[in-house]
């Protein structure tokens, strides 16, 4: 059977691959959306933090023999702690200023992080093996699905919806949202708002590192792996609506699918299609698909 001249098996496999990439976009754009929504900081260091997450996993494995599963927890904790330090020492001073200052600071930090890793490890990247438990693949009839890729989708979606649940449905999430709406009143109610904000930034950064560990067995772990991805992820956030939690998750998945389809019908355009959609969305709905105007 063929659809638009493309065998349906190929189409099915491309949609699945799109979903896999979409789940990466979802985790990364979720972290960005949380940081922007609650701190008003455009975190340009997100790609570098994703890269550092992958590197910590690689260093842990090769230097200390720490396996993938431990790294999946450990790396977000370490990089999240780095994020906490950054927030306490630098970002904190910028909240009252224009968005641009935060953007410039985090962009500068990203360049420094990438430079440091490049100096140490070179540009070609390092190889991280797929964990033993997730080796191999299953034949779905229309495609061969590596088990690891299936795991990526499950892990990413679990983390995404878990995060959404915490922020939208729990008391902690309510404090967070209230703290950003009106910090004075929340503070007056006896809640430590600055601590809450520090924690939020750390969590957003940890999400980036988590995505980095997920990506390590798939891509070469290289200093520039984040800078290639971050621009697309920003487009995802803009399309979803800056700061919208559910918006960023759904848009991430959706754009992964659209990108997958473009790779079948017109592969040359697959790097551009996300930006074309971004332009269209900004023209029609400047606040993004899920944003509040």
């Amino acid at each position, binding site marked *: 059977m063929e659809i638009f001249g493309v*065998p349906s*098996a*190929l189409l099915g*496999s*491309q949609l699945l*691959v*799109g979903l*896999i*990439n979409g789940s990466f976009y979802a985790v990364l754009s979720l972290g960005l959306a949380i940081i922007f929504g609650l701190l008003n900081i455009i975190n340009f260091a997100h790609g570098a933090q994703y890269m550092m997450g992958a590197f910590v996993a690689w260093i842990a494995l090769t230097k200390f023999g720490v396996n993938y599963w431990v790294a999946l927890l450990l790396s977000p904790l370490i990089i999240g702690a780095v994020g906490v330090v950054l927030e306490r020492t630098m970002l904190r001073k910028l909240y009252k200023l224009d968005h641009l200052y935060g953007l410039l600071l985090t962009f500068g930090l990203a360049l420094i992080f990438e*430079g440091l890793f*490049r100096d140490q490890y*070179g*540009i*070609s*990247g*390092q*190889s991280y*093996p*797929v964990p033993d438990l997730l080796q191999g*693949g299953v034949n779905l009839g229309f*495609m*061969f699905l*590596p088990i*690891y*890729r299936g795991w990526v989708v499950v892990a990413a979606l679990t983390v995404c919806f878990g995060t959404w649940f915490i922020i939208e449905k729990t008391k902690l999430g309510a404090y967070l949202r209230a703290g950003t709406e009106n910090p004075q009143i929340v503070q007056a109610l006896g809640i430590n708002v600055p601590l809450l904000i520090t924690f939020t930034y750390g969590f957003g950064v940890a999400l980036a590192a988590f995505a980095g560990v997920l990506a390590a067995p*798939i*891509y*070469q772990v*290289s200093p*520039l*792996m984040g800078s*290639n*991805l971050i621009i697309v992820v920003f487009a995802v956030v803009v399309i979803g609506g800056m700061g919208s939690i559910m918006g960023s998750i759904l848009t991430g998945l959706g754009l992964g699918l659209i990108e*997958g389809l473009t*790779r*079948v019908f017109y*592969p*040359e355009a*697959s*790097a*551009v299609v996300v930006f074309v959609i971004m332009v269209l969305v900004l023209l029609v709905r400047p606040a993004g698909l899920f944003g509040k105007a």
Partner: protein
Amino acid sequence: MHMKKLTTLACTAALATLSGAASAQISGNTVKIGVLTDMSGTYSDVAGPGTVIATQMAIDDFIAEAKPAFKVEMVSADHQNKADIASNKAREWFEREGVDTATELVTTSTALAVMKIGKEMNKVVLMNGPASTPITNEQCNDVSVHYTYDTYALANGTAKAVTQQGGKTWFFLTADYAFGQALEKDSSAVVVANGGKVLGSVRHPFPASDFSSFLLQAQASGAQIIGLANAGADTTNAIKQAAEFGVTPKQQLAGLLMFISDVHSLGLKNAQTMYLTTGFYWDLDDETRAWSKRFFDKHKRMPTMVQAGQYSSILHYLRAINAIGTDDTAKVMAQMKKTPIKDFFAKNGRIREDGRMVHDMYLAQVKTPEESKGPWDYYHIRATIPAEEAFQPLSESRCPLVKK
């Protein structure tokens, strides 16, 4: 007896005068070599800081062997793979800093830009990193030398060997820019000429990180061989993901441009049994091992063919100047073309009128982890491709300098 002594004395004096006169013909009594390369981007492991080290080694070795009357200096800069930065830097070097030659120039676009400046200002351009064939064809000029390798030699080595060994049907994964397209074109021609068939190709954006979609299309084509007409991180990511999706080992990959640094970063488990063409391997003989060990001690990595070629080209250039006692561009070019190149890098090299340095190339197959004795022990050399067969024959040249 007296007479003989006198003659000797007179000859010595005459020689001294001559060499004095000769060194006066070297501008500022200094030969200044500029290394213009990618110091921090995609190609910095292939070329980059390693070529700066190789250049310095060549200068040190030259001074030790020739004890020249003139000084040799080096400057280096990062062109960031951008043609405008490269041409501005080259112009500044030539006009204001007394640089005599711009060298290395990885990425074709920067190379072509600097070749134009070199021609305009009559300065020598020595290229090691760039790969495209237009450098010695449509765009060739009489001040430029393309030294280490090109896409023709790569395609001719890898695609020919793989097709002749039974890999008759091909599908190309091509980086969607000039270099990738040139490599696909050259390789397709070689495949067809050797009785193979090209079933299709997919052009991926450059750079890309996820190749699963493209690999699935290659898988669906049913081709025996998937030709990777890309380079650097694109190639390594594609190879890694091909194994993940079960594309290999059912279908074979052929890396059309792979460096030892790529194999090192991929690891043998991912890269094993692949064929590739290279202009240099550190473990060929005693000479290559000795030089590479010196390089390794300084750089902590084994040399890529670009880095080894950089050393060889700089030494050849300096020896030419020393032999004729002038840094006049036309004379230096004539001397370099006239003199055969024989060192650890090129056993029987020569520079043709189109600026192409032809030398033996090697068809290598990546070892399996079991076969390798340790880090950097990566290649079986399966065949030596003689200089005259490895590169595009002059009869097919599109360079106006070639008289037919």
